[in-house]
C-alpha cells in the first residue's frame, strides 16, 4: 500500500512545481538504483562479485552514442540495441570467467572492463579510422529536458527492481541462491550452474548497457574515461553492500543514501566523497556485512524461527 502511494507520488513529482535540481537529483537516484540493481542481480544473487560491470555500461553508452550521432537512430531503438549488444558481449566474457572461483572472477572482469576502455581509446589510432573518436569522445545532439529522463529513469528503475523481485521468487531465484550458498551441491542437485550464472550475467549486462545508453543521451558527450570509469563499478558495489547485497530492495536504500551524500559533498569536497565511500566499505564489511536491508531481514527471520525445536 505504501509502495503504491510512493510510486504514484513519484510519478506526479515533475508536475508539482519542484525545482529542476530536485527533479534531476531524483532521476539520478533512479538510474543509480537501476545500475545497482543490475549489479546485484549477478553479484548479489550468485556471490560472484563483478568488478567489470562498468564495461557493459560503457559498451551501451558507445553503442547509443554511435547510433544516435552517426546513425541518426531514434532513442528507444538505440538503447535497446545497446542492451542487446552488451548482453551478447557478456556471453563470451561470462562463459569462461564464471567458471573461475570467486576472487579470480572479480579480477578477470576488472581486466575486461579496463581492456574495453583501452581498446576504445586506441582503436581509431591503431586501425586508422574515425569511428570511436578515441579520447576526444562523441557528442550527441541536445535532447529533451530533465523531465523526460526522470520518467525514463523511473521506468528503468521499476523494471530492474521488478525483475530482481520476480527472479527472487521464481525457479531461477532458487537456483541462484543455491549457487551462492553451495555451488557444488547445487550442481549435484541438477542445477546447471554455469548456464544459470551466465543467464544472470547477461540480464545484468543488458540493463547496464541500456542504462548506459540512456545516460549517454542525457549527458550528450562521452569519452572512454567517463563511461568506463572504475568508480562507477565501485559505487554500484558500495550501494549494494550498504543497502544489503543480494536483497531486492537493498539497491534502493543504498543508492538513494549514497547519491544524496554525493550531492551534498562533491562540489565542495570532491575527494571526501570517495574517502567516505572507502570508509563505508570498510565499516560494512567488518561490522554489517549484510547491509541495511539484509540485517533487518535476518532479525526478522531469527524472530520467526525462535520457537525452539
Amino acid at each position, binding site marked *: 500500500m505504501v509502495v503504491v502511494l510512493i510510486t504514484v507520488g513519484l510519478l506526479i513529482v515533475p508536475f508539482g512545481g519542484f525545482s529542476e535540481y530536485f527533479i534531476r537529483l531524483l532521476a539520478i537516484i533512479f538510474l543509480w538504483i537501476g545500475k545497482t540493481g543490475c549489479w546485484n542481480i549477478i553479484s548479489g544473487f550468485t*556471490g560472484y*562479485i563483478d568488478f567489470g560491470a562498468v564495461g557493459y555500461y560503457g559498451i551501451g553508452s558507445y553503442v547509443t552514442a554511435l547510433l544516435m550521432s552517426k546513425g541518426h537512430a531514434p532513442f528507444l531503438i538505440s538503447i535497446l540495441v545497446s542492451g542487446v549488444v552488451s548482453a551478447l558481449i557478456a556471453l563470451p566474457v561470462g562463459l*569462461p*570467467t564464471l567458471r*573461475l*572461483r*570467486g*576472487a*579470480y572472477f*572479480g*579480477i*578477470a572482469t*576488472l*581486466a*575486461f572492463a*579496463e*581492456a574495453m576502455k*583501452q*581498446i576504445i*581509446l*586506441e582503436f581509431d*589510432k*591503431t586501425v586508422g579510422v574515425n569511428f570511436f573518436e578515441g579520447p576526444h569522445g562523441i557528442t550527441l545532439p541536445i535532447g529533451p529536458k530533465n523531465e523526460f529522463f526522470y520518467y525514463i529513469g523511473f521506468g528503468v528503475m521499476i523494471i530492474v527492481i521488478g525483475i530482481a523481485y520476480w527472479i527472487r521468487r521464481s525457479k531461477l531465484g532458487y537456483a541462484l541462491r543455491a549457487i551462492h550458498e553451495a555451488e557444488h551441491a547445487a550442481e549435484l542437485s541438477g542445477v546447471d550452474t554455469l548456464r544459470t550464472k551466465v543467464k544472470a550475467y547477461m540480464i545484468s549486462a543488458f540493463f547496464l548497457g541500456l542504462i548506459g545508453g540512456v545516460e549517454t543521451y542525457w549527458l550528450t558527450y562521452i569519452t572512454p574515461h567517463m563511461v568506463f570509469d*572504475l568508480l562507477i563499478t*565501485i559505487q554500484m*558495489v558500495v550501494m549494494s*553492500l550498504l543497502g544489503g547485497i543480494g536483497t531486492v530492495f537493498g539497491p534502493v536504500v543504498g543508492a538513494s543514501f549514497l547519491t544524496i551524500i554525493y550531492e551534498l559533498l562533491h562540489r565542495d569536497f570532491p*575527494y*571526501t566523497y*570517495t*574517502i567516505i*565511500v*572507502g*570508509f*563505508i*566499505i*570498510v565499516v560494512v*564489511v*567488518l561490522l554489517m*556485512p549484510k547491509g541495511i536491508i539484509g540485517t533487518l531481514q535476518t532479525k526478522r527471520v531469527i524472530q520467526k524461527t525462535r520457537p525452539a525445536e
Partner: protein
Amino acid sequence: MLLFLQSLLNGILLGGIYASYSAGFSLIFGVMGVINLFHGEMVMLGAFLTYWVFTLFHIDPFLTIPLSIISLFIFGYLVQRFVINRVVEEPPMISYILTFGIHLIIAYTALWIWTADFRTVTTSYSGFNANIGGMIVPYARLATFGLALLVVVGLYILLYKSEVGRAIQATAQDKEMARLMGVNINRIYAITFGVGAAITGIAGSLISTYFIIFPQMGLPYTIIAFCVVVLGGMGYIPGALWGGLVLGVVQSLTATYLNAGLSGAFTFILLFMMLVVRPAGILGKGVVE
C-alpha cells in the same frame, strides 16, 4: 635490430621493478589468502616518503630506503593486525572488497593532502646514462634494477633461511599444523603483511627516482602486480620474477612497435587470458583458490 634490443632491455629492466613490488603481493596472498587491493598505495607511500624526505631534507633517495622499510613495515603490520585480520578466515572476495575500500581511503586522502600534481625526484645523477653496445640505459635505472633483484632475492632468503621465514612458510602451507607447532598465527600474519608492505615500500622509493609520482598512481601498480603474480603463479615468490620479466618485455615491445596506449590494453587482455586459460601461472605453480 638495435631498436629491438633496446626495447627488450628496457622491458627487462622494467620487469625487474615489476617483480620487486609484486613479490609482496604474492607473499600476502600465499600466506593469508588475502588479495590486497591497496598494494599500489604502498608503492605510492614509499615513493612519496622518499620524495618528501628528498625535497625537505635533501637526502638521496637511495639512502631513504631503510626509512621506507621501517615505516611501511609498521604501517602494514598495524593495518593487518587491526583491520585485515578480521577477515582472513573469510573467502578471498571479502578481503578483496575490504582492501579496495582501504585503497580508496588512502589514495583519496593522499590526493586531498598532496593534490594531484605530478612530482619527480631529480637527483644530480638523474641524467647520466650508460652506453651498453649502443643501447642507452640511465645509471639510475640500472641501480634500481639491481636493487630490485636484491629485494626479490632478499625475500627468498628471508623465507628459506630464517626462523621467521620458516614460520611464515609453515603458516602458508598448513595453518593448523603450524598452530600446533606453537606458531602464533596472528603474529605471523601481521609480520608477513608488514614484510610485504616493507618490500613494496622499497620498490616505491626506487620508483620515485625515475617515474613520475602522484597520489592516484597506486591502482595501476596494483593491477600490474596482479598481472605479474597471475603470470608467475599466485603465492609462488620466484614466479614474481618470471611474471615481472614477461610482462615488462611484453609491455615494452608493444609500446615500441604498436603504441603506448595499446600496451595497457595488452596487459589487461593478457591478464584475462591467463585467468581463463591458465590461472595457475605460466609455470603452473600458483595457488588456484
